[in-house]
């Protein structure tokens, strides 16, 4: 089943052309990584794919329907967005924050019930934040906040996860744990994952496909193993990279 379909997509922000005539489909259970330099437009592309920004041209369909036909609430039940850098103006607790993911599933007059709380607790446990329910969010560390944002996204239970730098502020073990978590959603629940990453080697381990943003609207999309190689990466980052192989797994390091 196709979760997300992009056709002839033109995306730009200011004078930056992010993608010209981009076509791709994301099927259930697939993981797509977006790679590109700072300012190449990874965040812009993700928010566009999330239906929160209109593309300059082209069409996006989520589960077979354009965003305009779905409406914001229905769209929020199908796709979730992990955005960068949360800034809190007001205090709230860990549990309250994890529960925001339930919003699109609740009616106008509904309050979060036992089932919603159970989902939030499961999500908090999945990111290693069990037992912190009452903690004020502003007393958490950067990494803990990022994991809390991931928990809120899990509580939302979308079919398509759009992740903007999901590994920001996480130390190594939590980076792997987070990627394993999303990979399991893809494998077991047939969720689709689109994520912007900076770590090429983690991308190779955890993505089935890759979309490279070269700038000037030029893009390359395909199976991760084929699209990611020393040549394309050197062009992508403007710095030569070398490929190392260890135990059948490929690694890229700066030359």
């Amino acid at each position: 089943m196709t979760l997300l379909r992009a056709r002839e997509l033109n995306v730009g922000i200011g004078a930056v052309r992010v993608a010209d005539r981009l076509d791709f489909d994301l099927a259930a259970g697939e993981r797509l990584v977006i790679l590109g330099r700072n300012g190449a437009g990874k965040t812009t592309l993700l928010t566009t794919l999330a239906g929160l920004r209109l593309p300059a041209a082209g069409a996006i369909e989520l589960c077979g329907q354009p965003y305009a036909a779905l409406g914001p609430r229905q769209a929020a039940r199908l796709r979730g967005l992990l955005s960068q850098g949360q800034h809190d103006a007001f205090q709230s607790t860990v549990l309250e924050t994890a529960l925001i993911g339930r919003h699109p599933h609740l009616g106008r007059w509904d309050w979060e019930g036992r089932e919603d709380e159970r989902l939030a607790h499961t999500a908090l446990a999945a990111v290693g934040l069990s037992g912190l329910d009452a903690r004020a969010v502003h007393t958490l560390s950067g990494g803990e906040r990022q994991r809390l944002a991931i928990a809120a996204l899990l509580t939302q239970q979308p079919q398509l996860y759009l992740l903007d730098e999901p590994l920001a502020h996480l130390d190594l073990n939590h980076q792997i744990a987070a990627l394993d978590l999303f990979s399991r959603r893809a494998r077991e629940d047939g969720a689709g994952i689109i994520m912007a990453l900076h770590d090429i080697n983690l991308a190779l381990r955890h993505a089935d496909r890759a979309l490279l943003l070269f700038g000037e609207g030029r893009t390359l999309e395909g199976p991760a193993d084929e699209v990611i190689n020393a040549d394309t990466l050197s062009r992508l980052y403007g710095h030569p990279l070398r490929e190392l192989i260890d135990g059948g797994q490929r690694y890229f390091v700066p030359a």
Partner: protein
Amino acid sequence: MKKTPPVSTRRRALLTLLLLALLGLASLFVALAAGSIAVTPGDMLAALFGSGGIDSAHGAHSPHSLAAEVVRELRLPRALAAFACGGLLALAGALMQVLLRNPLADPYVLGISGGAAVGALGAMLAGLPLLFVNGGAFAGALGAMLLVFGLARGEGAWTQTRLLLTGVIVAAGCGAAAALILSVAQEQALRGMLFWLMGDLAHAGAPWPALALLALALALAAPFARDLNLLARGDLTARALGVPVARLRGGVYLLASLATATAVTAAGSIGFVGLVVPHLTRLAIGNDQRVLLPAAALAGGALLTLADTLARTVVAPQQLPVGVLTALIGVPLFLFLLARSQKTMGTPGP
């Protein structure tokens, strides 16, 4: 490990609101009882629920009927107006803080009171009667609201910073205009103008429009309170979770502005209630707008009713501007709660 905390459940919310409603009733009771003419609870009941003191058994001029008349004709309208204005200001403040995602926002930050002041003081300068002063205040408030809304909307992008800046600048302009009016006004008009600027409920008029708007505003905001919780967390978060942010913000702006305009028209620019009551309430019960909005309205109503009662009794027959008293009551209360919350919220958890 801490024990699992309570989520904002419906039951806890209802309990909180019930307590605050009792506090509101108590404040009204005090407002009806206090004053230079002693009123017994019996008089009060007779005044509120009786068929009317004047033509009843006591005869036209018995002390009981006088007390009942004072309660019904003077104290009750003024107490209700104070309650409604306090509630409207606190509600508007809470909404503005969410709208601008800024804890320093208050109902006046976007220039609504400034516009009202220019209208009201202008009418006073021209020597117009009270009706025109109130009309001028409301027209000025709406004018400032439309001006800020129109200017901030500009290119379509409607960011919090742009709205805040536009509002603050319009407020500064209105402040200058009000100061200009004060400086050219005649001596005998000055005192009335100063009281208007500091907030004064002596000329509040019939409380029903303000009370009706308070009830309407709460009823309109209630079904969108969870959306507002998300809006407080940021535009992108809210939109990603299905909140129609642009429409919601337009509605919140309109509602908060109308609430402020109504309160300012009735009672002048009473400071402090709209800034501090939402914070007081937030410190006490958390930031869930579903509870916070009605709780702030009740607490704001109670605070202003008590403050106004003090304003007309402490140095009677002299009356003090109520805005001074809201600050005198609110500042220590707020500092106390803030100090206490730092002790409990600031401690690192497990």
